[in-house]
């Protein structure tokens, strides 16, 4: 799941090498923390959080397949 977030984030930002993803695995849920360069924040959040919402939707679908809940946090 973390890899999915990392791939999407790296595809959208200008500084892909600055993308960091940390996965905190729980029993039924997984928290994915995403960190990007400060100037790239807009590229993963978007106007009114539209990009962040799309990332979360895609991750949620992938997580459903594994019967898990995924939470994506952008730091």
């Amino acid at each position, binding site marked *: 799941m973390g*890899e*999915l977030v990392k*791939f*999407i984030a790296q*595809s*959208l930002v200008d500084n892909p090498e600055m993308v960091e993803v940390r996965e905190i695995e729980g029993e039924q849920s997984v928290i994915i923390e995403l960190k990007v360069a400060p100037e790239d924040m807009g590229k993963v959040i978007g106007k*009114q959080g*539209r*990009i962040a*919402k*799309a*990332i979360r*939707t*895609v991750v*949620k*679908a*992938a997580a*459903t*397949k*594994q019967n898990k809940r995924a939470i994506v946090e952008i730091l």
Partner: protein
Amino acid sequence: MRSVESSGKTIDEAILMAVAQLGVQRDNLEIEILEEPVKGLFGIIGARDARIRATVKKTPGEKAKEFLLEMLELMGIEAAAVDVSEKSNCINIEIKGSGMGLLIGYRGETLDAIQYLVSLYVNKQTEEYIRVIVDAENYRAKREETLKRLARRLAHKVAKTKKRVVLEPMNPYERRIIHSALQNNRFVKTYSEGEEPHRRVVIALK
């Protein structure tokens, strides 16, 4: 990726050779200069040809496909095929395989998210805006049919009860389908109210 190395007396000449060999227009080639030409004495002694490598640039459709395939794999969705057709400034992508229900999501929510991300990725690298449409199992056409039916049914209800009807929030694309379905209706008019992403279509008596 298709690429060739070619040489010529000048860089332009070498590029022309590459264009001829690849059968691709100059604008669609990425040129890397491997060696600058050296004139030499009287153009003979010590003269060296220019050498270049020309690579065919990926089209937006190819980029979209690469991105989408990688994303689907990481999502754990087995897509049997991803068909891409490119028209000027528009890419149509059709995903085929099992597990498409999950890929479409509630009211096409996941499909829309995927479409949005592919569009962001493709348009990040292009100057002109390219419209991207991602579909699976003909969802978009079916949804359009459903919305048109809904519009006609509600228009009928509004005409009968003389009370306006507020629809659930929809994205701009879906709202447009409702508006255009009732554009020429004699009894009702349509408009939208509220702010994105909660904007809703209203059907009211004319």
